[in-house]
Each structure stands twice: as C-alpha cells, then as structure tokens.
C-alpha cells in the first residue's frame, strides 16, 4: 500500500463512532425534545409536590424509621414528652420515638441484639438515662440522629436545658431477617428503575435512527465510515444523554429526599454496599441499554417508514417486558435455576445482576456477568450493524417492496458475504 493510500484510509471505527456520537449528543442536548426528556420523569414528582404528596410521603418515610426508647418507666415518659416539645422546634427531621421497654431499676438491656433481631420499622434504640443516653444504631443513623437524641434527652432531663448530655453510641450491623426483606425491596426497586430507564433510552435511540433515515443522510455515513461506527456512535451518544438525564434526575431526587430528611441509611444496606451498588447499577444500565438499543437499532434498520418501525418495535418491546418479568421472578428464586438462567440470558442478565448486587455480598459474579454482557453487546451491535448495512443500502423500489421475513434477514446477515478476489 503506498503512502497516499495509507493516508486516505477511512477513520478508525472508534474515531468515526466519536464523530457520530459527538454530533448526536450535541444535537439531542440542544434540542427542545431534550427538555421534555428531562422533565418527563420529573412531572410526577412535581405533581406530587404540588399536591402535598411529597411532604406526606417524606413524613411517612421519616416516621417509618422509629427510634425505640428502652429506659426506666419515668425516663420513658420524660423522653416521649420531650420529643413532642422538640418536634415543634425541629419538625420532621426528628425521628419518631416510640416506647420500647420500660425497664426495672438496674435492669440491663442488650440494645444491639434486640436491634439486629428487630422487626418492623425499628431503626435505633436509645437506652441509659436522659442524663446519659446511649444510642444504638447503624453508623449512618448514628451520625444523623445523635444530635437529635441529645436534644430530646436534654429536654427530658431538664426542660429548657442549655447544655446537652453526651450521647454514648453503639454501632450495629443490620443483618437480621428484616435486612433481607429490605434488600429484596432494593433489588426489586433497582430492577424496575433499570427497566424504565432502558426502555426510555432504547425508544429514544430508535426515534433518532428513524429521523436519520428520514433525513436520508445514512448513505453519506455509510460511504464514509464503517456502519458499526454509526451504530456505536448512536448508542453511545444516547448513553451520554442518559448520563446527563440521570445526573439531573438523581440530583433532583436526592435534593427532594434530603430536604425531607430521608437518607439511604433508612433503607437496607445492599449486599455490596451502596457505593458499589450504584457503580454496578450504572454498569448494568449501560450493558442493558446497549443490548436493547442494539436490537432496537436493528429493528429500525428493517423498517422503511415510521409506521413500520412502530409495528416492528412492538414485539421487541413486549419481549423485553417478558424478560423483565422473568428477571423479577428470579429475585424470589435466589440460587435456583430461574436466577441462574436469568443471569445467563443476555437481555435479562443486567436485571438479574442488579438484584444480586442488592442481595448478595460477592463481587466476582459481577465481573463474570459484565464480561459476558460485554461480549453479547459486541455480538448484538455487530449483527445489528450487519443487518442494517444489508438492508438499508438497496437501491430502488424493489427494496421497499420486498417483504422478507425477519428470520430470513437474520440468516442472510450471518451468511458469508461474497468477497472480491484479492
């Protein structure tokens, strides 16, 4: 190959994908549709806030995490009375204190054991005396509630007190039966959120492709850069958009919940811990979106009109809903064949693994799953791009008229292409 030919080579796949992704990302970010995309998921929050629903919900969440009082009888009464006084001052940030045990003078109480075997909404225990209170809870709750307990205890020991007693703290690991229930809730919530986000984004990438076909610019792209790069560029542009969206939604949600006094420590700690859970959630979101996005892009390539796109994407959507239900079922069958099947099947794997991150401490299954899903993403994108390349670059009305079955199209995609002799 001579010098001019080497210099004339087309862009590498990743650089070409970057060119496409940069264009798509900028175009979507600056479009009016993006504003609606951002606002869409926030509408229910705003409506609830306007209706006072958020406040009620926050109140409910805050009160659902109770602080039990285990003291001598008169101290319990004093603490409960002080709580009412303090609540008038600090509002919903004060956790709900409930009577747990009225102890006999000198009676010991093992708060840590009681808490670890707790049921219901008990999240912390304050024991000792109002003059020397002891708070037993998880580390996060200790940090949040230590001051409040001191405030209540001060009021209980001496109304109008100017000095607060020192609160002794004891940390517990919440790993009892109630923790498992909480983890299951986290798993199911994570799956649902993942599903909604992926479906939203995959639909958007499909709309983007349809627009591209409508603009008839696709042939210019195909002539200049690898079709795989067009696919990757579009997929990753939408992934970038989703990161912006999630950042906005996450920040808004975090601000709303924080303002309402709700903390992650109110919820069961996921098996891998919250930071790792968020990291894995992001990774599985990326994989799940890329897998479904690749399918939707391939579907988009088969269609010649928007109506055809809608018709063809319907089965893909319904199938994905079934996959989601399957993955949801896997949460209830931990360690069973349903869960393993859900983890192995590419489209349900991200959902199943998010649930596993919530319920199980082990990290190595996630490495395996991410590697497997990454491989599947490569295959899906390659197949989708192949299908697209074969389908869209036909000339004349014959291509539009031909009505081949999806199976035949897929078969043709994987059939050996004739190659000019070297």
């Amino acid at each position, binding site marked *: 190959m001579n010098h001019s030919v080497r210099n*004339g080579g087309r*862009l590498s796949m990743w650089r070409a994908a970057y060119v496409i992704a*940069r264009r798509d990302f900028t*175009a979507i970010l600056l479009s009016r549709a993006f504003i609606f995309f951002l606002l869409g998921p926030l509408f229910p929050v705003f409506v609830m806030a306007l209706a006072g629903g958020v406040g009620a919900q926050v109140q409910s969440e805050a009160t659902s995490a109770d602080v039990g009082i285990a003291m001598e009888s008169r101290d319990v009464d004093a603490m409960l009375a002080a709580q009412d006084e303090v609540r008038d001052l600090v509002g919903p940030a004060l956790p709900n204190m409930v009577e747990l045990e009225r102890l006999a003078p000198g009676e010991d109480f093992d708060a840590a054991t009681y808490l670890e075997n707790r049921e219901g909404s008990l999240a912390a225990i304050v024991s000792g005396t109002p003059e020397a209170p002891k708070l037993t809870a998880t580390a996060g709750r200790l940090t949040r509630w230590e001051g409040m307990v001191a405030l209540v205890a001060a009021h209980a020991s001496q109304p109008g007190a100017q000095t607060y007693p020192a609160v002794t703290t004891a940390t517990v690991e919440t790993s009892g039966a109630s923790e498992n229930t909480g983890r299951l809730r986290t798993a199911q919530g994570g799956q649902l959120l993942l599903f909604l986000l992926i479906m939203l984004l995959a639909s958007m990438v499909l709309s983007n492709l349809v627009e591209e076909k409508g603009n008839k610019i696709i042939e210019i792209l195909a*002539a200049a850069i690898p079709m795989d790069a067009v696919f990757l560029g579009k997929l990753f542009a939408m992934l970038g958009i989703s990161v912006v969206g999630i950042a906005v939604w996450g920040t808004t949600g975090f601000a709303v919940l924080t303002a309402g006094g709700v903390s992650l420590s109110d919820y069961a700690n996921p098996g891998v811990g919250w930071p790792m859970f968020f990291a894995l959630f992001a990774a599985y979101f990326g994989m799940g979106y890329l897998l479904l996005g690749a399918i939707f892009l391939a579907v988009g390539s088969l269609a010649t009109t928007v109506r055809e796109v809608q018709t063809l994407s319907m089965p893909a959507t319904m199938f994905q809903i079934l996959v989601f239900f399957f993955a949801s079922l896997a949460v209830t069958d931990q360690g069973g064949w349903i869960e393993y099947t859900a983890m192995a099947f590419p489209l349900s794997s991200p959902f199943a693994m998010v649930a596993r991150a919530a319920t199980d401490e082990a990290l190595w299954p996630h490495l395996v799953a991410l590697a497997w899903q990454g491989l599947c993403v490569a295959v899906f994108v390659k197949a989708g791009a192949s299908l697209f390349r074969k389908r869209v670059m036909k*000339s*004349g009305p014959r291509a539009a008229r*031909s009505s081949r079955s999806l199976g035949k199209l897929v078969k043709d995609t994987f059939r050996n292409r004739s190659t000019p002799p070297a």
Partner: protein
Amino acid sequence: MDMATGEFQASTENSRNLAIEAHGLVKRFDGTLAVDGVDIAVPAGAIYGILGPNGAGKTTSLRMLLGIIDPDAGYRRVLGAENPQDVARLIGYLPEERGLYPAMKAYEAIGFMGALRGLPLDVGRERGKELMEAHGLGHAVDKQIRQLSKGMAQTVQLLGTLVHEPKLVVFDEPFSGLDAINQGKLEGLIRGLADKGTTVIFSTHVIAHAERLCENIAIIAGGKVPYAGSVEEARDRIPAQVRLETRKREGRWRTALPAETRQVGDFFHFPLPESGIEPLLKALIEGEAGILSLSIERAGLHDAFVAIAGEAAARDMVADAEGKPA
C-alpha cells in the same frame, strides 16, 4: 476469478492511470439480479459519465465502487486500493437522495461531512464558511438547513462533499432537482474540479450533461454495460443522418433513397449509405429531384444512448421471453 486477477496484474501499467477500474461486478438483491457483470475503467483526472435509464443499476454500481455495498462477484480497484474504504478520505460522494440534518447550521453541516472523511471539525467548519462565501451563500452560513431553500441545501451538501478536497468525486444524479441556472453552475464546478486534476464520476439519465462534460462514458442498461468508451465512439456507432429537401415529391430519383427513409414534412430523413454521399447525390441529380437542401448530421449522444440502451433492453426482453440469460 483468478484469471481476471491475473489480467489485472498484467495490466498494471494501465491501471496506474486509472482512478477506478471494475470488472464483472455482480449484485443480487433478494435473488433479483440488479447488476450483472459491470465493467468500468475511469481514467484519472477525467470526467466520466455513467448513463442509464431509471432502475438500470447505476446507483448500485456506484455503491459497489464506493464500498457501501460489496459485490457478489467481480473485482474493483479505486485509487489503487482494492477495498474502496481504504481510500475513503480521498473520496467525496454525493448520493442521489440528498440528506442533511435539518437543525444543523449550514457551515456545521459542511464541517460534519468533512469530519466523516477525517478533516478536523474546526477546520471543516472554517472551510465550510469559506466555500459558502465563494459560492454566493455567505449570507446563509449561520442558517439552519431547514431554513434554506432546496437548491441552497443541495449546494451545501455539494460543498460538504468537496470540503476535504477529495481526489475522486462521485455524484449520483447530481443534476436532479436543480433548475437550469444551478445545473449550469454545477457543470462549471465539475469542470473546475477536473481542471485541478480531480477525477469526477457521475451518473445521470439526462444525456445532455454527459455530452457536454464527459470524454468517456459507460451506458448501463438492465444491470449490464452494453457500452463503455468515449463519447465520440458512441456517437459513431450510429450512422450519420441525411436530411434532404427536394422541389419534386415524386420521380425516378426516389428509387435512389434507402429503404429506411422517413418523410417528415418537406424533408426526407435516412441514414447515410455505407457507399457515402457521392453516389446518392449523383443519382438524385440524374433523377432530377431538384435538390433544395441536403445536410449530413452526425448522430448525437442521445441517439446513440437510445440505440444502445434500446438494443440492450430488446435483448433482455428476448432473453426473458426465451428463458435464457441475455
């Protein structure tokens, strides 16, 4: 195909002067033969026309030459590369179906098209502004594509095709949708490209453009190339036409006229006899035809195209009727 490859290796010297050479390109869609053994050789720096009726296989042939689709059989070499994608940065391509992002500004669209061919985005955008100024569209640089007229948008796309200064430019039906003035401008632009040494290949079903611009053409009909060569040779394939006007309508001189003679108004039209004009002239004079005017008109490319494409179509029809390959 080894034999074909060997032939190409033997003709390396010739190949060096060819921007494009393709032999035996075949493409089927859903079992339907769209292109059936196309041979094309485009000299470097030439303006080359691919002529053919609608649906003849022009676009599919161009797409194979550009590497947008792969041929089912055959051989192609573009700017010295067997895989056209290996020289993608040296190629500019304007497809038949024009496409731009409606929300993009005009100069951004040009820059984007340059970026697809490896030009840095900022350089492409700057060049886009300069090109638009040079082509009288300076006022529209910052306008979105959706705000431009169809002709202006087409010009923007054309400039986007050229922004990276390609060595080979491929236009698919570039004149469709343009008014006469813009067609003239485009013809000028194509000549300008060729003057700078750029190879230009374009497809059209409007013969006049090819006749004015091209030295060499290929005629595609029914997926085949019944003719590839110079415009002059194509015209020479059709006998010159004689147009005769006489004072008398009848007389023994009429027996000197060829059997294919057609009478249109006061004129007789017939192909120039193989024996030349002199014996005929002598017979007309001796027969007292009373010649008022006699002219010999060389066949135009349009006539040649109709004859060549028509023959090919007729062969196809016969082959179809007999169930044999044409």
